[in-house]
């Protein structure tokens, strides 16, 4: 069964075709990496899967439901979660507040007006647990603006996982992290393997080859190859277009 199925997707920005008749199928519980040079259209693809960007044509199917016309919140509630390449956090809230909001989003309507959300253990306990998973337990009460760049990246991942998604899109989650921090995230992602479908965009080839079940190579809005790490490594087109001589 495929968790995500994309057919004939096209997105143009003026004269530029950022997504060019793209087809992609990701199996349930697969960890599928997408690699490609800067400006290849990776974030534009993520944007279309989440609903932030409307494609010019093509369809996006999530768990056998056509979601091409769905809004961002609708897709999110259907089990989709994404991390942003450029962190998107609620500045002015603490790390824990940010994660608690992700949990709140999955507990039904938020038209609840009277009880103090910050004293609600059904929000706070799982929020702390999610922070602990990414190694931010001791930063829970810090305001976002007090966190380091790497910590904000970790928080971004804690929020994504706290949404208990079935389909996770990670847009360069390790970018800007220290080596230790990214090691922790690689371990975390590999522990998630088999429990959710993950689409991972990442430039760090060591991480990609260690984690991915399959890879797709995106160049100029087109997927030029899909396969296992071994198949991609020896694919001559990929070597020419992307991996260059050093793979």
């Amino acid at each position, binding site marked *: 069964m495929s968790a995500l199925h994309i057919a004939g997707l096209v997105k143009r920005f003026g004269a530029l075709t950022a997504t060019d008749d793209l087809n992609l199928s990701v199996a349930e519980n697969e960890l599928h990496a997408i690699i490609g040079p800067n400006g290849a259209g990776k974030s534009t693809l993520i944007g279309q899967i989440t609903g932030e960007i409307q494609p010019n044509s093509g369809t996006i199917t999530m768990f056998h439901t056509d979601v091409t016309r769905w809004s961002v919140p609708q897709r999110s509630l259907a089990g989709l979660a994404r991390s942003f390449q450029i962190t998107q956090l609620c500045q002015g809230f603490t790390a824990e507040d940010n994660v608690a909001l992700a949990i709140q989003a999955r507990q039904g309507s938020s*038209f*609840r007006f009277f009880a103090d959300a910050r004293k609600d253990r059904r929000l706070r306990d799982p929020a702390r647990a999610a922070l602990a998973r990414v190694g931010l337990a001791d930063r829970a009460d810090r305001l976002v603006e007090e966190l380091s760049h790497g910590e904000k990246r970790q928080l971004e991942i804690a929020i994504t996982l706290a949404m208990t998604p079935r389909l996770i899109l990670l847009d360069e989650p390790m970018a800007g992290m220290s080596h230790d921090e990214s090691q922790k995230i690689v371990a975390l992602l590999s522990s998630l393997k088999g429990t959710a479908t993950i689409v991972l965009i990442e430039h760090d080839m060591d991480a990609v080859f260690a984690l991915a079940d399959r890879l797709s190579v995106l160049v100029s809005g087109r997927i030029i190859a899909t396969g296992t790490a071994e198949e991609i490594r020896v694919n001559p087109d990929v070597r020419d277009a992307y991996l260059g001589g050093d793979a």
Partner: protein
Amino acid sequence: MQRGERISQILVALATIALVALPVVAATFGSTYAVTLATRLLIYGMVAVSLDLIIGYGGLISFGHAAYFGLGGYTVAILAFQLAEGVPIFGYDGTNEALVAWPLAMLVSGLAALVFGALSLRTSGAYFIMITLAFAQMVYYVFVALKYYGGDDGLAMARRNTLGGARIVDPQIFYYICLGLLAAVIFLVGRFTRSRFGMVLTGARMNERRMAALGFSVMRYRLVAFVIAGMIAGLGGALWANLARFVSPDMMAWTKSGEFMVMVILGGLGSLFGPVLGAAAFILVESTLSELTEYWQVLFGPVVVLIALFAPRGLWGWLTVRRRGA
């Protein structure tokens, strides 16, 4: 944080004591002017608190809040007028009873906020400011044109509403009614802002994109906040009509919307109690400067700018938040 909260609690306690004692103290000096002035403060404070819910917490810069204030005022004045004239309105005889008229005022303002909010919340930024202003101006001109209700000249109320059948003659009693309602509004808005609803409303101000990605349809939460704020402003307008025993289109002029914004910014955005302090400062400055010169606003403008520059969290923030590094 902790120290700021302590200071807030002390300030609120002191303000409560002062406001409760004020009519008694004023009575010993034989002054009714002070009670009237303080009642204005309570009503303006209530409207400013409601505006803070959408501007300070929600980040929705509405420049038309006076429309809901005015609609609330006109609702009670018109209901009393129709009753006195013996002419039913929409098949209803009208009423002079606060327990009916005030909730109706909130309903009318809330419905207007629902319609205008649903249309204006599709926009953001400067467009939102302009469109909320445009709707308020529309309401303003409707009432200027309604000659039956006095048009430009406004509409007088022969006497105050009755409360549960009893007349409210004593200005002190009316003052305490306003004080009680202001306390209720602050209590409720305080609850709302700390609830799950409030977290979504505030989060959407901080990062709308993130909130949508989490699965929140932020527009719905914003609309509900907009309607709540409109209803409270409507109650404020109903009280104002009873204080002045008069309503006029001036209640919904764009300058009035601007004054409410000044109170919120002066007091401190998103500070719950701050807008009441802002309203107090506004009324004090207005009543002292306006005795010196009729161009008092020319003097007041720079004062507001200075406060915005040197106390970005408003008077409340300046009093309660410890300055970093100092």
